[in-house]
């Protein structure tokens, strides 16, 4: 046979099957473009040494893998669909005298032409788009590095390599399938009679249990340190629950409706209920996938958008004051080393004041106090230091009464305490209600005045992200040192380090930004020069700002990027679902018109069905989001975002935008469905 005939046949077939080849090509092209863009951006970031670049590279690498997996899934899914539709056509070739190897050659050329065509097209589109995306990314990061973004040959090579591999595997798969099939099977239509799905009650109930358990975990998590682990478990449970519910729960529900004769034998319910039953059987998996993907898009987008928009909030949570310094107080340790230092806080204050004058900045909200802070757990009213394990941890922060009373001006202050008395504050009712507590071996009575007082904002923000935290005010400095000694003695191993009494000195700055930055940059040197002992932390909100913007900006970018990929995959699944259903439903609706259903009625029933099937996944996705709300807030708290209003706003905004895009996809795909049913 003339060799070019296969190619000609292939071209002809693609043209004839364009309603299915077009989305196949689009999917391949878009995935190629997305993949190329991601790779080229990662490569650019890798070679450009800018602050935060390394973090971003790690995140982008993750995105590359996600994109790779999704490309494989999307192309295999679309190819599988393509093949299923064409059984009869291929069978006919076989009957008309083409051998399987000939048909294989035709299929080979079809994938070569459609697949590689879309790959090249996608790559070119990606080249153009990548430049645009990169400029957008740089703008978002407020960077002005001015580095060139040319064509990345490396990225193009990797992309071409990956997609060539995917298409080759596709061709192999198609041929393997062809070899296994008998011509009669190819010819036979797929509607060999479908059994009505049976309701699997056990699985349906299991689905409800999984979902409830996942929701319960998500709602009840209090501890953000635990949140990540719990989140993981909850996600798995919810995914399992979603699949089970879509597959069995939906059918069980429809069965119940069907049992109710008064409801079932009604003009619209009759056709909808039975039609839905078959749709759910065929599409439950697809719908569950859409639901999970939608949820993922919403979570990724709402969190990354919140982080990016809330960057100032994040900074302020991480840095309660503009400049934070602290110093270890350990005269006993010094004595052991044969040293002696002057631990006078006023020396610190003076040094910094002089430094501020030098850089023409004004200090405000100055705050100095001694403290100890450590993590541990409380068992039967006894606090012991403990850093390890996933069980819930309590953060202990202790200061002296004198520091507490002098911190806030105009405050009446707390009454003096006996040595074995403390004030104790906690937002956790369990700890706030304690009337005595042992901190390691020393037992303290909690002054009853504690429960009547609100912890001042200056101190409250110090407890930061810890949900389980106790804030303790001790009678005097000696008591604080005693407590510190007790804590260190109680530590089970040297790995746990030493808890020290710290002197904290922090303040906000007024002045112009470059002065403030310069002041902050040189502060540590100035403190060392003044011979201030054991300078520990010297940090400020100005220097890391750029780093924060870059990190959260890249998170944001990746969020949008991955969101776009997920959305693409979702739209693709929806489109194929519509097409495949269109083919199957066509015959059904012709019959209904024959037995006396008007075109209008048919149209209404169709609309009703696709709308239900369509909105079901996104509705459930929104329910998922609602239940995930608490745990996501806790996770965001770990990333220093505590602004609930902002997160609610971002989530609602994301849902709205997503719903609009989803609706557009629905409208577009519904049209091709109607065309199929009505032709």
């Amino acid at each position, binding site marked *: 046979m003339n060799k070019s005939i296969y190619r000609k046949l292939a071209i002809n077939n693609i043209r004839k099957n364009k309603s299915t080849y077009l989305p196949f090509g689009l999917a391949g092209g878009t995935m190629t473009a997305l993949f190329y863009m991601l790779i080229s951006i990662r490569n650019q970031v890798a070679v450009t040494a800018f602050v935060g670049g390394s973090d971003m590279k790690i995140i982008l690498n993750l995105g590359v893998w996600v994109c790779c997996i999704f490309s494989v899934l999307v192309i295999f899914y679309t190819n599988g669909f393509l093949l299923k539709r064409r059984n009869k056509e291929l069978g006919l070739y076989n009957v008309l005298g083409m051998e399987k190897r000939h048909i294989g050659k035709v299929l080979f050329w079809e994938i070569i032409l459609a697949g590689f065509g879309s790959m090249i097209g996608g790559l070119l589109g990606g080249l153009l788009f990548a430049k645009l995306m990169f400029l957008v990314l740089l703008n978002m990061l407020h960077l002005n590095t001015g580095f060139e973004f040319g064509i990345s040959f490396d990225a193009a090579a990797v992309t071409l390599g990956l997609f060539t591999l995917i298409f080759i595997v596709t061709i192999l798969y198609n041929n393997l399938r062809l070899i296994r099939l008998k011509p009669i099977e190819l010819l036979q239509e797929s*509607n*060999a*009679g*479908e*059994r*009505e799905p049976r309701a699997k009650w056990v699985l349906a109930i299991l689905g409800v249990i999984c979902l409830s358990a996942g929701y319960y975990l998500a709602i009840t998590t209090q501890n953000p340190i635990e949140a990540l682990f719990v989140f993981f478990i909850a996600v798995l449970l919810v995914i399992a629950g979603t699949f089970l519910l879509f597959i069995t729960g939906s059918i069980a529900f429809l069965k119940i409706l069907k049992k109710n*004769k*008064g409801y079932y*034998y*009604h*003009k619209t319910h*009759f056709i909808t209920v*039975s*039609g839905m*039953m*078959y749709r759910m059987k065929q599409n439950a998996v697809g719908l569950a996938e859409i639901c999970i993907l939608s949820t993922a898009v919403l979570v990724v987008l709402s969190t990354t958008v919140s982080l990016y928009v809330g960057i100032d909030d994040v900074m302020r949570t991480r840095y309660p004051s503009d400049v934070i310094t602290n110093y270890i107080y350990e005269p006993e340790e010094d004595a052991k080393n044969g040293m002696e230092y002057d631990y006078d806080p006023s020396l610190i204050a003076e040094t910094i004041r002089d430094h501020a004058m030098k850089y023409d900045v004004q200090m405000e909200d100055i705050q100095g106090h001694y403290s100890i802070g450590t993590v541990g757990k409380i068992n039967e009213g006894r606090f012991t230091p403990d850093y390890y394990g996933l069980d819930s941890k309590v953060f202990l922060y202790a200061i002296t009464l004198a520091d507490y009373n002098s911190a806030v001006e105009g405050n009446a202050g707390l009454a003096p305490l006996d040595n074995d008395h403390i004030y104790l504050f906690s937002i956790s009712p369990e700890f706030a209600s304690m009337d005595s507590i042992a901190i390691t071996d020393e037992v303290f009575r909690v002054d009853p005045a504690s429960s009547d007082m609100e912890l001042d904002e200056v101190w409250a923000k110090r407890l930061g992200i810890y949900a389980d935290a106790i804030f303790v005010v001790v009678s005097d400095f000696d008591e604080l040192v005693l407590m510190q000694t007790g804590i260190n003695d109680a530590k089970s191993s040297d790995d746990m380090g030493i808890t020290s009494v710290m002197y904290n000195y922090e303040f906000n700055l007024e002045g112009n930004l470059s002065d403030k930055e310069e002041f902050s940059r040189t502060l540590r040197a100035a403190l060392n020069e003044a011979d201030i002992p054991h300078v520990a932390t010297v940090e400020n909100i100005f220097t890391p700002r750029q780093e924060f913007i870059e990190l959260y900006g890249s998170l944001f970018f990746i969020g949008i990027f991955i969101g776009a990929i997920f959305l693409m995959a979702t739209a693709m699944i929806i489109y194929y679902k519509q097409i495949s259903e269109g083919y199957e439903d066509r015959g*059904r609706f012709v*019959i*209904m*018109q*024959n*037995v*006396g*259903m*008007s*075109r*209008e*009625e048919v149209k209404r029933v169709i609309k009703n069905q696709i709308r239900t099937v369509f909105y079901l996944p996104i509705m459930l996705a929104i329910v998922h989001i609602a239940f995930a709300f608490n745990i996501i807030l806790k996770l965001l708290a770990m990333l220093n975002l505590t602004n609930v209003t902002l997160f609610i706003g971002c989530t609602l905004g994301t849902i709205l935008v997503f719903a609009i895009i989803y609706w557009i996809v629905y409208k577009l795909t519904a049209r091709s469905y109607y065309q199929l049913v009505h032709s």
Partner: protein
Amino acid sequence: MPLLTVNNLKKVYTTRFGGNKVTALKNVNFSVEEGEFAAIMGESGSGKTTLLNILATMDRPTSGEVILNGRNTGSIHENELAKFRREHLGFVFQDFNLLDTFSIEDNIYLPLVLAGKEYGEMNDKLKSIAIKLGISDILKKYPYEVSGGQKQRTAIARALITDPAILLADEPTGALDSKSAGALLKTFSDIHKDGQTILMVTHSVKAASHAGRVLFIKDGEIFHQIYKGNMTNDEMYMKISNTLTILLSGGDLSE
């Protein structure tokens, strides 16, 4: 007055890209009396399916009129056609046209549900029809679980449950083996005896031999008809065969 009157019916199809015109029916005239069992016979391409589609109001004639129960079907508005079909016509198709997604029972209920009937009323009707057609045992089954003959009985039940003025059957035995076909034709005879008006289109001599009158259609025209009178099915079969032989050999027929 006859139940169904067809006057000067003409149907011309225009091929898709303009140009050619194909005349499927030209000047068809006949009538069917109430309670009659009539068959229309003809070769493939003779226009019998076009005729049935027009009678079924699924297609519109180019000219001429169809009067059912004193009403001109051509004057019924598009929006009311579905309702008209549902209320006055019953259909039985060659390939059954049952919905796989419904049980036998629900398939039969379909037209009544579409008409908005109460379940109790529907259930009573179903019971009596199911007994008559011998399908009471399979009501809960699905179309893919029963035989061809049972499927066609289901289709007849679906057509009869609305008490149609006329039952239109398009090659009802076409997809059945000879034994099932025989049983099904007996069913048709039975429901005809109960007073149901039937118009059947077929090219099976055996099927036509059960009818009280057979009309022959060729090249879009009714050009002959024979009455069964007191003949047995076998005698009728012979007569139809002979008529067809003369027809095919191109001879002239005279009454």
